[in-house]
């Protein structure tokens, strides 16, 4: 039996209350009669033998590429780059997809007699991973074989001697890349394509690049012209990366891209209710929900955060493809769409969403207010193809506690951005023009990025640019149940209940608005016609 596709529910009197994520907790909300609730499709079947599928992909490459084994030769320089801790979400149960793929690549390298192999975590401007995060992504076998010898590296976008300039695109964009990757005979990139935004040329052109290079596509103009950045063909973010990818290719860097997709089996069985439709909840699901909620009510936020951080997702590999970047990525996108597309007809006046405890940039960390904005207005708002789910001038209602809390090690520049920049203005263009440079080049942030586990000084700006399209498009943003002062600092309106938020929304969109709720995660991509 094939899994059920995504579903659009129209709320009527008999519809049970809808589950809203609310950070490290949940809310049950009654949506107005006539509202739509969008549910993700059910998980696709897992690959029956993932390791065999990986080996098959390596030897049967897509596009203009030879099989991996014939690209390997003794005495060569091989570099394997891989996606960092921001993928997948939540972190998957071992073995991680990267571990399976890298083990297969290393087996092939070993049998070809390759001995100069280096692994690089493709951090871009993200924080350095901790040892246990690396061990989790790669497995102990790989970690212990490489790390002690200094062969497991993390990309350092601020290392002047570790970055090379490969040229400029026809649009004048600088292309800079990790020297080790650029000077290797073969660069293998191992990706996890959780959402349609990931992968393709973006893997190398962003993951192994420098600030000088990344700033050409991580800016307000690009983000406002990416509609959405989940739709590669209508995304200026991707166009720029594709231009850069071609410069990298033309500069002679040989990239062998390996992309994997995961099914939507996102939460372990004790949280099964999170990926079921409420009216189908069994007695066990109800009990599980009630017990979880009761326990969370009595748990301090820091402990609740630890509990949620320990969730390991049962994500299963649903496809793997390897070879030339563009051919591989086309196939990958088809596979992502096969799992995640949900057809929706028409836009809505009011879009509601509940944000979970995790986003790409707070794995094992704290979801600070800037990340709340980014997850809601950057990621979830952009989970569309065609037209945004909410009409222009519409209202977005977000449910999240939005605490005024920052991780002192991971997000130092976020705290300063929040205190110094957002207190002055929330306009992305003004922020970009006035403040980006000083944060991006601040020596203390550079130091923390390179030596500690901090996101780059410019990273909070990117989070805010990620929201630029939504901020331009929406008439108002309301956060339900958030820290009022933090919400106001973001430039949004705080509301105590969803009912209040809907009342407030009417001031913007008129009486009796249409309401649509996106029931994520698990994630899906709305195909809005």
């Amino acid at each position, binding site marked *: 039996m094939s899994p059920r596709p995504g579903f659009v529910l129209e709320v009527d009197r008999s519809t049970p209350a809808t589950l809203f994520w609310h950070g490290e907790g949940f809310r049950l909300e009654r949506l107005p009669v006539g509202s739509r609730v969008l549910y993700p499709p059910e998980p696709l079947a897992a690959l029956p033998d993932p390791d065999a599928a990986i080996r098959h992909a390596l030897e049967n490459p897509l596009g203009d590429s030879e099989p991996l084994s014939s690209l390997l030769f003794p005495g060569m320089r091989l570099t394997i780059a891989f996606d960092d801790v921001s993928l997948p979400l939540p972190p998957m149960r071992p073995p991680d997809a990267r571990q399976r793929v890298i083990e297969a690549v290393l087996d092939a390298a070993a049998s070809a007699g390759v001995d100069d192999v280096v692994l*690089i975590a493709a951090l871009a401007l993200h924080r*350095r*991973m*901790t*040892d*246990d995060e*690396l*061990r989790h992504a790669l497995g102990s076998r790989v*970690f212990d074989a490489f*790390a*002690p010898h*200094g062969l*497991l*590296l*993390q*990309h*350092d976008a601020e*290392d002047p*001697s*570790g970055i090379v300039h490969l040229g400029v695109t026809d649009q004048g964009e600088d292309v800079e890349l*990790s*020297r*080790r990757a650029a000077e290797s005979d073969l660069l293998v990139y191992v990706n996890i394509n959780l959402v349609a935004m990931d992968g393709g040329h973006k893997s190398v052109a962003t993951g192994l690049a420098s600030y000088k290079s990344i700033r050409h596509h991580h800016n307000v103009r690009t983000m406002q012209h990416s509609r959405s950045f989940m739709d590669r063909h209508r995304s200026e973010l991707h166009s720029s990366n594709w231009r850069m990818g071609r410069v990298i290719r033309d500069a002679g860097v040989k990239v062998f891209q390996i992309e994997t997709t995961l099914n939507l089996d996102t939460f372990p069985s004790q949280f099964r209710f999170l990926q079921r439709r409420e009216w189908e909840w069994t007695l066990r699901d109800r009990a599980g929900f009630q017990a979880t909620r009761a326990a969370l009510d009595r748990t301090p*936020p*820091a402990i609740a955060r630890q509990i949620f951080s320990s969730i390991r997702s049962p994500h299963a590999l649903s496809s793997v493809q390897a070879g030339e970047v563009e051919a591989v990525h086309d196939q990958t996108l088809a596979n992502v769409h096969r799992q995640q597309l949900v057809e929706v007809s028409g836009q809505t006046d009011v879009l509601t969403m509940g944000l979970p405890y995790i986003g790409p940039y707070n794995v094992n960390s*704290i979801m600070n207010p800037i990340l709340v904005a980014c997850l809601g207005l950057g990621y979830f708002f952009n989970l569309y193809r065609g037209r945004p789910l909410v009409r222009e001038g519409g209202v977005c209602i977000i449910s999240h506690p939005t*605490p*005024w*809390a*920052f*991780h*002192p*090690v991971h997000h*130092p520049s976020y*705290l*300063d951005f929040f*205190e110094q920049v957002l207190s002055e203005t929330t306009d992305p263009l003004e922020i970009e023009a006035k403040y980006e440079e000083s944060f991006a080049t*601040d*020596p*203390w942030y550079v*130091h*923390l990025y*390179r*030596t*500690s*586990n901090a996101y780059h000084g410019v990273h909070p700006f990117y989070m805010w640019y990620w929201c630029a399209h939504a901020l331009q498009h929406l008439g108002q943003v309301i956060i339900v149940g958030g820290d009022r002062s933090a919400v106001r600092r973001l430039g949004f309106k705080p509301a105590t209940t969803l009912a209040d938020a809907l009342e407030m929304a009417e001031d913007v969109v008129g009486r009796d608005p249409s309401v649509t709720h996106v029931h994520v995660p698990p994630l899906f991509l709305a195909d809005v016609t």
Partner: protein
Amino acid sequence: MIADALAGKRIAVTGATGFLGTALVERLLRSVPECELVLLVRPGRRLGASERTAREIIRNDCFDRLRSELAGSFADVVARRVTTVAGDVGSDGLGLDAEGRSVLAGCDVVVHSAATVSFDAPLDGAVEVNLLGPSRVARALLDVTAEHNPVGSPLPHLVGVSTAYVNSGHHGDAFEELVTESRYLALPDWRAEVDAARRARSDADARSREPERLAQLRKAARHELGAAGTALLAERTERLREEWVDAQLVELGRSRAQALGWPDAYAYTKSLGEVALADTRGDLPVSIVRPSIVESSLAEPRPGWIRGFRMAEPVIISYARGLLKQFPGVPEGIVDVIPVDLVVAAIIAVCARGPEKDATAIYQVASGVRNPFRYGTLVDLCESWFTERPLYDAKGQPIVVPTWSFPGRGKVQGELRRAAKGLRAVERAVSMLPVRGELAEKVTGLEEKRQLAERALGYVELYGSYTETEARFRVDRTLALYESLDEHDRAAFCFDPGVVDWERYVNEVHLPSVVEHARVRTAPGRRVSATREERARAAILTDEPRCVVFDLEQTLVNSNVVESYAWLATRHLSPLRRARLAVELVAEGPRLLAVDRRDRTDFLRSFYRRYEGAPADRVRQDAWELFSDLILTRSFPEGLQRVREHRSRGHRTLLITGALDFVVAPLAPLFDEIVCARIGERDGVLTGEMVATPPTGEARAILMERWADSLGISRDATVAYADSTSDLPMLEAAGHPVAVNPETKLAAVARKRGWLVEQWAPARGGPRHRLAVSTRPLGPRTQVSSGALTGIRPSGDLS
């Protein structure tokens, strides 16, 4: 006519910088236009006698009326009519130079109003000024006239200002007669009293230097300042010793006065001063004016003029602020208050009238008999006045005044004494607790409460007797003098106490003046102008050059050397051994804390021995993990932000810490320089011996100053951030000291000095470690992509 009688006369005044003296000088200048004035002024520590006249007398608002009446010619008139002579009534011969002596010889009248009016002055000081002062003036006058004037010239008329309370030790009428004539006073030999008082000073001084006493004082200083270093403790101990000697002499004065039947040392020394004057005046014509409690003026130069915070004012303000819940006294009792302008008028009338033949004429200026003012009336008036116009507390809320029930003095004193004692005990107990930050500030609030209770007790002890005086000061001679004046003089120089309407005086003259002078809040609401805190911060964060010194532990990071060690030591241990080491360290805590309190350097030296034998490379590697896992996690983001802000303004930053070089190395980009501890290394292992000792105490202050000098930046432009009294020398030396999350003692010091206090906390919602043990899973350190295994870290210049 008074003005005519004094026309062309030269009048000398002592004590012209005082309340009564200033009013007298002003009145003579304004109302007796033809007289000349000679002011005998003691040169101050910084200002000479003439400067004191200009600044402390002529510039006083007392002269505002005359200034506007004379318009442009005020300065000329003052210059023409006022001569200042440097002199001191506290020394024999008045400390006059030749010129001063000749000027004094040319005077026709001398008004001696110089006195130590404080009721709780040390005995020896009061004796020198109050007891010996009048006879010294008399002696000097006899000497200079004999020296300069032809034989047979008339001697100048000495008008001494005394107090009605010389005569207050008994019930019933107190007449205008010499104290020696009173049947109810036990008068000792004044010369013996002088000797005893002088001896008492050296005795007390000797006692203050006894070993037990010094030990006690040192303990008190240490309790107040903590481990602030030898120099500061010594300085504080010496100050406490001097204060102790003074306190002994204050106590001695009070008990001696009370033993002889006077309320306090002031009345006692003044009485004997009259006796001494009588004994030594020879042929000098003398009159004595005895006012009772002199308060703000009724009409001249303007209603409510007052100088200084006098006797009733602090009591009234304490009452209005709700601090003085009770004050002893009987409601029917008489408070003998007299407005200052009445006293001045009486003195001038006495000057004009001249001395009585062959006798000392005594004039009492008091209101108790002629126009009695009941204590109960005063309290009622104050209560209704402050109920209508309350003062406001720091939060802008009106203060409700207490209702006094007129208990006995003993009861009030007992209550206050118990309250002060209780608060002292609580304060002492709480200050032992290792609290800091906002809690510590609360503890200093306790100290403030205790001081208020002690001050209230002081008022009651000092002034209590003045509300219970049963003596009635007769004013017959004064009134007779008043009656003898013509109508014009009676209007111009009114000193009939009968003219005072007490209700109007209190409501419309005295209380408004007191409130105005007390600098208290009389309007509701919060202040809108920048707070002192904001101004202090703005002075630090300027674009001017600054040398900024930071302490590390508890100033920028909520951690310490023990925790760093625990983290590094447990990093390579099994969970079980890790737990054991943690428990051992916790158990050792109190001992370590005690050593640390005694001597920081000793503590570091002995504690760092624990690193002996540790593999140097591994520790240095691990320190980078320590940076993320412990130092940054426990850092105060506002603190780090402050360092960065200083740097962005081009200020120079220096970190001084007892932490080890490899622990602070990752902080290097924040500072221009780091001064820290370093331990030796031999054959790849740490020796545990400190090879670089970080400065502590005064050495930090010296280092900061040297550093500022070397950068060519003024020492006034130094800024020091620190959290404990062990850094007091550095904070004291800094141009801009900042107490960060201060512990109790430093919080108290900072509050007293008005230093900027910053409360910095770890990141909100950030991860919390309960124990500083490494919880990061082990694994070889992963390098950044360019790197070989080591040596890729940016490193600061550690000296």
